[in-house]
């Protein structure tokens, strides 16, 4: 009896152990994880969508898109409200000491490239995981169709990676280059900054892949222009080549956009302000944030509406916005009385004496629960649009080794014509024409994240000082590249300060 009992007991124990392994494997089913997701096309879609939402986070972290592109150009008078830190940004006091703990200081945020690397990391993750997904996971009638769906997502990830690197290269110059997915974050290496030309070369490689994998715009798609297509790839290429000064290639890339089979057309003058709500006919690439469920608090001083609008457009009790337009530049740019743009997207403010202007491109404001105390802003971030590419092509034609001034002028005139300016411009050549094109870009693309980079390109070609904050000597030393925040050195000893800013960041 006892022996029988012991045997039974032992048998129970053994049976118990042999089942351990399976018993101890528990998978999550209420939270997505890398190990359990990445199985279907919608997983790939959600992951790639995240690349764009992360660009959106980066562009909004400190009014970032407009701080880099517009605030530090000549578009605004001295920052006079909201967060006064932006005055340092505007005056290029970029080396000012900010405690690393002061994480909500815009001066700190604008020195950190962290958010752009999050986009890069998510793109790298998408490339890694989507590549390893079998073609059968994707939808399509046959393998070729499924492969094309898979390639489409890979193409988008290549685009978002290239976009981030290009943007970082324009802001910081040399930046660390990482194109791998890290399985173990704790073992990620410390990376030095790669030369800008290497970074841009990598962008070109990525964009070449993206170009092959992506289609032209599908006008019926709800995702048109807010997610990458072939048009966005060529627009990015055009900007990249222009930044590198490779205007022959820039010209070709612009042509690809202008001659796109599913064409882009300039929005009619009457609908001009619709451009800024988003998804207009001339839009090529933009960042979506114009749905109520993806909107911004309109009156917060860390939003583009909060700093550029005043009463009564938004309910912030301010007679003038924190960032008022540089009156001198405004009057210079919009001297033509026929030009509809100052009437449509600017507003003159009465301040009881001095003239002030506000830019109302981003003024699609909605009240929540019909209460003016709660307002949200519904404007996309317009990154590339046809007018921009037309003028970029004009710049390329004027600046390339074998210039074509006539065609360049006709492109400028096309943009001016849409603005209802009656007299076409004629007879400009050389640097005069380049200055004229940059002025037109300034008029057309005011507060669209381009002006600062336009002025840098112009000064590179003409050698004439464009910004009061950068002397010719400082320009040569590369002051326009941002310093990186010293807190980034703590974990990465291989990282070095941006050339001009060495020893100037405290």
């Amino acid at each position, binding site marked *: 009896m006892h022996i029988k009992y012991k045997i039974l007991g032992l048998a*129970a124990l053994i049976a118990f152990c042999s089942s351990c392994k399976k018993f101890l494997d528990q998978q999550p089913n209420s939270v997505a994880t890398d190990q359990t997701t990445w199985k279907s096309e919608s997983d790939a879609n959600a*992951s790639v969508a995240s690349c764009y939402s992360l660009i959106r*986070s980066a562009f909004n972290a400190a009014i970032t898109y407009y701080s880099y592109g517009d605030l530090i150009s000549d578009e605004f008078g001295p920052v006079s409200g909201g967060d006064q830190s932006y005055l340092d940004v505007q005056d290029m006091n970029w080396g000012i000491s900010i405690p690393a703990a002061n994480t909500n200081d815009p001066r700190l945020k604008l020195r950190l490239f962290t958010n752009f690397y999050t986009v890069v990391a998510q793109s790298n993750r998408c490339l890694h995981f989507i590549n390893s997904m079998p073609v059968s996971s994707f939808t399509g009638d046959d393998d070729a169709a499924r492969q094309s769906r898979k390639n489409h997502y890979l193409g988008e990830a290549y685009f978002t990676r290239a976009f981030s690197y290009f943007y970082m290269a324009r802001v910081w110059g040399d930046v660390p280059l990482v194109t791998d997915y890290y399985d173990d974050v704790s073992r990620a290496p410390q990376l030095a900054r790669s030369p800008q030309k290497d970074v841009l070369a990598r962008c070109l490689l990525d964009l070449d892949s993206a170009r092959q994998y992506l289609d032209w715009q599908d006008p019926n798609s709800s995702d048109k222009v807010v997610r990458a297509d072939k048009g966005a790839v060529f627009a990015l290429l055009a900007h990249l080549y222009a930044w590198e000064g490779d205007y022959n290639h820039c010209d070709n890339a612009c042509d690809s956009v202008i001659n796109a089979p599913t064409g882009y057309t300039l929005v009619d003058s009457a609908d001009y302000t619709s451009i800024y709500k988003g998804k207009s006919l001339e839009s090529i690439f933009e960042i979506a944030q114009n749905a109520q469920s993806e909107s911004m608090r309109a009156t917060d001083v860390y939003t583009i509406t909060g700093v550029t609008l005043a009463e009564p457009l938004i309910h912030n009790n301010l007679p003038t916005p924190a960032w008022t337009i540089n009156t001198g530049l405004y009057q210079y740019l919009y001297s033509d009385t026929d030009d509809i743009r100052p009437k449509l997207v600017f507003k003159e403010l009465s301040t009881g004496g001095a003239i002030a202007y506000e830019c109302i491109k981003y003024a699609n404001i909605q009240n929540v629960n019909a209460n003016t105390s709660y307002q949200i802003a519904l404007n996309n971030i317009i990154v590339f649009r046809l007018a921009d590419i037309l003028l970029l092509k004009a710049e390329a034609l004027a600046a390339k080794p074998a210039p074509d001034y006539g065609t360049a002028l006709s492109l400028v005139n096309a943009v001016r014509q849409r603005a209802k300016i009656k007299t076409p411009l004629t007879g400009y050549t050389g640097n005069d024409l380049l200055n004229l094109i940059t002025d037109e870009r300034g008029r057309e693309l005011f507060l669209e994240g381009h002006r600062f980079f336009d002025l840098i390109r112009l000064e590179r070609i003409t050698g004439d000082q464009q910004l009061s904050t950068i002397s010719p000597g400082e320009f040569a030393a590369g002051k326009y590249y941002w310093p990186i925040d010293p807190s980034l050195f703590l974990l990465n000893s291989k990282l070095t300060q941006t050339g001009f800013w060495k020893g100037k960041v405290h």
Partner: protein
Amino acid sequence: MRKIVLLAMVVALSVLSATTAGYGQTKVYAQGVVRDEKGSPLGGATVAEKGLPNNVVMTDSSGRFMLVLKGKGREVTISYIGYEDQTVRVIGDALSVTLKTSKSNMGDVVVIGYQGVRRRNLTAAVSSIKGKEIQDIPEASFDQMLQGRLPGVSVLSSTGELGAKPAIVIRGATNVDYGNANGGNTGPLYVIDGVIYDVNTITPAYTSYNAISGAPTTTNPLSLINPNDIESIDILKDASASAIYGARAGNGVIIVKTKRALRGKPQVGFSAYAGVTTRPQFRKVLTGNAERALKLGILNSQLPYSNMQGNFIPIALTDSLNPAFNNDVDWQGLMIRNFALVNNQDVSIAGFAGSTSYRLSLNHYNEQGVLNGFGIDRLAPHLNVILNPIKGLRVNGDLIISSERRNHGTGGSSGTLFSSWNFPTSFVQLNPTQSALYKGQANPFDDNRILAMNGSFGVTDTIVNNLLFNSTYSYNNYIDRWSYFSPAALNGIQNVAYDINASNPSWTFENYLTWLKSFNDHHFVLVGGTSAYDTKNYFSNASAAGIAVTGITTLQTVPPGTNLNVNTNRQEKTTVSYYGRLSYDYKGKYLATVSVRRDASSIYSASYRWGTFPAVSAGWIASDEKFMEPVKNVVNFLRFRASYGITGNDPGSFYAKYQSLSTDASFLNATTGSLINNYGNIGIGGTPSTYNGTAVISPFPYGNWVYNSGVGASNSVRWEKYPQVDFGTDVELFNSRVNLVVDVYQKDAKDKYFYNIPAQVTTGYQYFSGNFVDVRNQGLEIGLNTRNLASSSKFQWNTSFNISFNRNYVTKLPNNNRDFLFGPPWFQQTLTLGQPLFNYKVWQIKGAYPTDADVPTDGITGKKMTFQGTTLGAGDPAYVDMNGDYNINLDDKVIAGNPNPKVTGGIGNTFSYKGISLSIFCSFVTGRKIFNGALSDFLNGSSGIYGSYTNWGANAGPAAISGILGQFWTTPGDHAPLPRLVYPNGTSKDPWDIASSYFVEDGSFLKVKQMTLGYNLPEKWVRSLHMRFVNVYGMAENLMTWKKSKTVPDPELVDPTTGTSNVVYPSALKFTLGLRLEL
């Protein structure tokens, strides 16, 4: 797995038929009667043959026994809990044994996991408390009653809200999870009658949040257990005792033994108490005209003319004739019940029917909250049956159920009115509906139902004489459903209905063998077994906003869309374990124990799954040595103990090895366009989860202001290990009149799982997680119990005192021991090598500058001191410039203490004379610093900074802090401790940042926790009533508090890691009258 359980149960049951064989030897009988000193027969006493401890019988209800002796010794030892052992020689005749009441507690049985041990034979540090000592305290769960009772056990509540879970920390804090943002998992392991009830894995439906740090306090699942059902509580503190529970014992183990039937007459008991919770101390608030006069007076004297002239002064202050602003409401009176009732009834019946014993008890507990609308009502039956169907076989069935109804006012303690930030003014006109809602009288729907249960079924079989097999299957669940309706009149936005469901089933299957062996003076006990454990959380949360139909208070009538929200969550973890323990003693005075447990958890990947948790300990009862004989009258017991062992702890997340992905697609100032009420501040909120309508997934949620707050998972995540060494001694002097226990320990927490290690920026993650932090606690514990008067005295006075000293510091941090900062910029704490956990970082402030000239000037630049760039002036805080750069920024913050108490303890005195007894118990805590979050919040929300005196028409502002108004700077030349209250409109100075030394206060306190005056009715009266025992008493709880901090109402109530006090729900003084009967 379920199959395995069934199979094993079948195996276990198949042995029911196995009877132990008889022994055909010459029979020698020991028989007789056992009585107590009064001559009453003692049923249930143990009679064991000396040298053969397994040859044992129990006395029957008339005290009789008969034992067949098997050895040659012919001696039996008779023992009974609470009495001294007696060994008698068997000489033919029937024995008559009288047991003496024990003066020492060394005879008590202490449960140390799969085994009960006499306290005398313990080699581990175990603190115990009898159920009697905490019975009838008017609280819903027993853990709240342990404050100050036991050395090394710190019990601190973070809110006075009834039924909330207190933080229990045994031997120092090891929690590195700031604000418990990742689940913490810091509480001890509870074992109830051998069944593990892992409170750490339970997710209740109702949670309240600290108004400042957001740290959660959940409903306490321990309200499952009726405190009056508890026989004893044993707390396993050192690794030697707790390592048998291995990976879950890192935070200590609390073993609860509930009452069982005693032999003899059936025991029928009834007890009841009822009482009131009195009104807490109110804040002194000026109302009506006094409020208006005060505010206008301040503004007139403090503001420049331009501000007075502009439309900045709220109309409610200037227009005293408008009836809408002409009210006089003391809000505190609205919120609080003057007399909240508490009452409790217990009935129990227990006894033996033959060899079967049973105990049934039923408890009803009802408490009203001091805040209107809060309450608990519990009905808790407990059933225990022990059968002995066949000799050698014992079957045990146990079921504890607690059915509770709770109320949480108007959506919990985070409801509108309890916020310091915008404490309402007395001017506001309330309509009757609002008034009724605020009073908690009209909330149409607030329904929180809890069903907690713990059931077990076990068999113990004697396989052979000294080998026992035990198999127990147990199941527990905590089902919590909270549905409520938040009307627009309260939340300020719209009608919202909520429905939150949580269910936490778990089961454990334990199988173990116990082998007892003795030869000569060597005694061995070997325990070995296996266990399987599975726990799940099911959680669902649904809400519907914008209900427009009156009468509907659940989720109805709202069309699908953004106003209708639901999400569900399920998670599961499993553990498999093997364990063994060998206890040995030689002559009962040289003691040693070795134990080991191996645990495997589903949380970890296969290569890190198994953890081994060994322990060794030894004890020496020196008082048994010959050389101690001469001093035996003074030192009647002396033991030395030493132990070393390793216990473990799980990281909070069930799926830590997986890289989880988030659907957060937000960005700075992002919103989904919905209105949210956040502590009374209505704003546009919501977290976008889509990009152009497509749901996103990535490991990078945009959680704060700068970075995407992604945390990289570690696929090498593994058990945290807690090696601990302990030296202790137990001394009893003067025939056990003085009883002293002293322990010193060093407890390391190694490989603490840490969520916040900064990652390389190029990985995209802000942090990665892993087992990277070590924390050490060193301490000394002293427990002293004395009977101050001779036992012959009619007047008796007993004192129990305990005190624990603990030193807590970080011994290892990742990234070359770099400091870690936590919290938002205005509220930071650090982990620093060699320093206690979560030091506060604040600006040192020495009052306010009396005049502009007093502001220091930089000798080089000639510029005045600035605060983050803004020049300081008269009335501004006089910050100490630590780095001498004449600018105050975050680098000038200094360490200003931490929330970990250095000293905790308690003192109790009981006086008795004849049937009258008076006991007073006090607990104390000192050596901790706390943040006065309530005041900081109040000043931030209601003071005059950034011109927010414009809110003084809606908020109470200075009217609610009239007690400290004299401390603010008002006119040049004032040497004031606090800066100016009112700044001109548009000033960007913030003197009320919580990171200021004037908000850090001493958190020391001494509380009179309980005072009880009782009377046992004289025996002859009781007998004439046909009863055994009648006791009447009156009790006061939280009678008095002495504290160092003047402004914090109750320094106990702070959040354990962030140290912030913002009492939204005060603790309360209770008085009860009670009656206890035994038939």
